[in-house]
């Protein structure tokens, strides 16, 4: 026993194991570890008020639009036009025929955060003709310039931030957000301090109101300073920024 090389250090015939000390040390470590864990668990990003019930699949009638990202213009409960972006259940954009547009019905589950909405379309035949009649006013997209904006914050993938992930922003989420962006999902922008629990995040577009190219990818999920204009298009607010006006801070 005592010549066993593995146990020789504490073999009972050499050193009496200080059981009292070890027990105290063990309880101390467990209490300390539990305390540290409880402290760390509370830290980090608030998950935010996003909701996505994947089992609640329903049909949504609306006007299908493909730019800047596929979206459905619907009439909300209050009678006002309301936009819901479209996505697959994964990190890819929906595939639409080039001429797909008009009054349609989309099957999918709703992802929502505040007034922000996205429909994760169902597998299979998720797009069909709507049996209802298109209400008037959905094709009016009044554009209103809200003025210049110089903001510090984060370029988000809208789907995760709306509620597909909780939390769905920040450095740890960068790879996921980049995959979503590469997959063609909408981008948005949250201001530092409000990414966690806030509900406002304008769409993030180039100076002309179009999607940014792949050169935007390295900036996603990093803290950036962006200088551009806020524009309201229908019920959607857009933050339009030229690529050279985005700087990592």
């Amino acid at each position, binding site marked *: 026993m*005592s*010549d066993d090389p*593995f*146990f*020789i*250090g*504490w073999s009972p*015939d*050499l*050193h009496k*194991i*200080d059981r009292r*000390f*070890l027990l105290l*040390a*063990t309880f101390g*470590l*467990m209490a300390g*570890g*539990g305390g*540290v*864990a*409880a*402290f*760390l*668990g*509370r*830290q*980090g*990003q*608030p*998950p*935010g*008020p996003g*909701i996505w019930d994947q089992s609640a699949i329903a049909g949504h009638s609306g006007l299908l639009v493909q730019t800047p990202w596929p979206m459905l213009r619907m009439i909300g409960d209050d009678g006002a036009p309301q936009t819901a972006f479209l996505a697959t*259940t*994964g*990190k*890819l954009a929906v595939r639409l025929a080039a001429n797909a547009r008009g009054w349609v019905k989309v099957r999918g589950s709703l992802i929502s955060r505040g007034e922000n909405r996205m429909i994760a379309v169902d597998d299979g035949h998720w797009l069909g003709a709507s049996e209802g009649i298109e209400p008037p006013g959905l094709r009016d997209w009044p554009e209103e310039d809200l003025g210049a904006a110089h903001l510090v914050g984060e370029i988000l993938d809208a789907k995760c931030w709306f509620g597909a*992930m*909780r*939390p769905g922003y*920040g*450095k*740890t*989420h*960068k*790879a*996921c957000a*980049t*995959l979503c962006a*590469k*997959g063609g999902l909408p981008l948005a922008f949250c201001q*530092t301090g409000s990414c*966690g629990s806030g509900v406002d995040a304008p769409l993030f577009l180039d100076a002309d109101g179009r999607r940014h190219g792949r050169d935007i990818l*390295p*900036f996603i999920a*990093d*803290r950036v300073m962006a200088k551009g204009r806020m524009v309201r298009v229908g019920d959607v607010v857009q933050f339009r920024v030229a690529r050279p006006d985005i700087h*990592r801070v």
Partner: protein
Amino acid sequence: MSHDYRVVQWTPFKKTFDLWLGSGIIVFLAAHVASAVFAFPPDQHASEVQLALRASGSCAFALLSLILAIGPAARLSPRFLPLLYNRRHMGVVCFLIALLHGGLVVFWYHGFSGMNPLVSVLVSNSEFHSARGFPFETLGVGALLILFVMAATSHDFWNANLGPGLWKAIHMSVYGAYVLIVGHVMLGAAQGDEGFAWALAVGISAALVMGLHLGAGVLEARRGALMRRIVAEGWLRVGAALDIPDTRARVVSPPKGERIAVFRDGDRIHAISNVCRHQGGPLGEGRIVDGSITCPWHGFQYRPEDGCSPPPYSERVATYRTRIQNGIVFVHPEALPLGTGPGPTLIGGASPAPSDCSGEVRDV
């Protein structure tokens, strides 16, 4: 190349240790998840995968910090030795928890897209030149690979077949893994609006680990100086007390005079002349039988404490003073008068009083 390899034995102590280790990990993970759930309104809690992902990441880092703290702690106080001798179990568990963390990250953040998730981990971000945008995941992957190699070679089988030198060198890479993980957190979770607590926790852990190593280093340096002083006083270094097999001896050669056999009898250390009074047999190759040092040649016996043969015999060999400093045995080459003994030196305790051939305890 190799030495004897024996299958690791499960002792009650090891089982108890693993039980406590498992309980500690469960407490850590449960506290992490519970506090994260209760920190926010019920309809705003993090997704289950992200809760598990964060808790396992924190747990792996805390466990690795603890593992690295045990080494210097055991040098500062031998009371931590039982933890040291079971540290490998912690290492393997640490790897498994880190693997869980990595697996969840790959599944959750890199899955559900058109790209292979494992490829995505390596190519999704190439901002190596930016501290803000740095692909911190790659550091985690590096650390996980090191932990894997260590866990895979942790068994004594590998120690025996790779040789202690190479094995030790491989396992020293744990410090590289730790540095990578510190970078992984600092360039990852610690960034952003809510990252301060992570930076603080990692900073304190790293400072503790470094502080302990520094403290142990200073102590080692002092011990080294003390050892040199002891040797300068004429004492001869024998070796680690625990390296002398029980009831056996290690033989040292003084500059002049007879060789000295230093015996261990349980937790007692004795030194007597290596030369048997019968025909000069090597007493140091004998062993302690029934409390007496027994010559390997013809079985003459001597009491370890005073060098006297037990009654009715009257042979006597010289004894020598011993001392133990930080687990290292020293013997003084000056023989004591025949028939007297200095009293044994106890491993890890005060030494009993010296005695002589009559068996009487003498005043010092």
